[in-house]
């Protein structure tokens, strides 16, 4: 009896951790993308990228709202977003990396969009109705994001020597953060057994195939034998997350409970 109760508690904690990871990754990526507001290379792209950021913020809100509900301690999605510290965030390392130039931002987006479309397509089949619903709604948005980032990777790769150089540099610098997307922890295993979570290892070959086709089209080469970065599953982050949170959470921390 005692063991069964412990088992059920753990599944709930696992679901909380899993949903937090998804929500945090969306939140931090959206925060990074919104740094381009007003700084886009030209008006149309400025709007395109910031609209993409808004779509991702929307997803983050839905996910964190559900995470708070699963946690069942009376916190809201705002509490989770604005009052936690770095060691409590589970976003992927790639989402917190600096934007760099537009080519770097775009190639990061291509890596993430390709993964997200595969991931959320699978998650829409989850036995957890809320996660499946959020995933189903996200699929159309992510299809568009991917079309946007993939077409820009192609343009940069087949543009000028400078655009290709910047794209290649961005790819080299971000490639070490791509493996982490597919890491499965105890949480993933437990929830996968329940039909809630996605088998990330099954997504990897599909992702690799699509990305290598894209990079080939864009004349970008991939480094082999690269040390892959890891740690976010244990809430271990790069030095960047602290600065992102400081900016993102400043208002809520300076004026607790502020409403407008």
């Amino acid at each position: 009896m005692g063991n069964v109760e412990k088992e059920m508690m753990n599944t709930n904690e696992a679901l909380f951790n899993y949903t937090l990871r998804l929500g945090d990754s969306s939140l931090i990526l959206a925060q990074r993308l919104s740094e381009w507001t007003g700084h886009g290379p030209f008006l149309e792209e400025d709007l395109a990228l910031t609209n993409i950021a808004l779509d991702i913020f929307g997803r983050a809100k839905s996910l964190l709202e559900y995470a708070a509900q699963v946690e069942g301690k009376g916190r809201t999605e705002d509490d989770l977003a604005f009052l936690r510290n770095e060691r409590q965030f589970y976003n992927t390392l790639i989402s917190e990396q600096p934007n760099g130039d537009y080519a770097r931002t775009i190639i990061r987006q291509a890596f993430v969009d390709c993964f997200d479309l595969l991931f959320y397509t699978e998650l829409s089949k989850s036995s957890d109705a809320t996660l499946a619903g959020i995933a189903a709604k996200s699929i159309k948005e992510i299809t568009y994001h991917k079309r946007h980032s993939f077409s820009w990777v192609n343009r940069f790769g087949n543009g000028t020597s400078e655009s290709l150089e910047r794209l290649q540099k961005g790819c080299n610098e971000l490639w070490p953060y791509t493996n982490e997307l597919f890491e499965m922890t105890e949480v993933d295993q437990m929830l996968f057994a329940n039909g809630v979570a996605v088998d990330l290892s099954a997504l990897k070959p599909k992702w690799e195939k699509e990305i290598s086709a894209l990079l080939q089209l864009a004349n970008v080469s991939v480094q082999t034998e690269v040390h892959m970065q890891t740690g976010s599953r244990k809430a271990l982050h790069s030095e960047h997350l602290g600065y992102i949170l400081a900016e993102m959470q400043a208002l809520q921390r300076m004026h607790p409970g502020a409403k407008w």
Partner: protein
Amino acid sequence: MNGSDSQGPLWEVFVQKKSGQPFVHCGNLHAFDKEMALQNARDLYTRRGEGMSLWVVLSSAIVASSPEDMGSFFEPSNDKIFRHPTFYQIPDGVGHM
């Protein structure tokens, strides 16, 4: 590259609200190729559910009437009421036509 405008050519955007309805001009944008023009049109002009279909056309492809032609092109039709289908009595049973 010729320095001054490096945003690409200008394209006119038309949005169709629902299938079967006319495409309506809603603005323009700069883009370098067709795919980009279409995506930019979607991002700029369909943010609030304005429509279900988009056309983008290079502004240079549009042929427009000039203001000098206004008189000979359009004024003659102003006093030709026989061109309007308003002289028929529609029997009650027909309803709306």
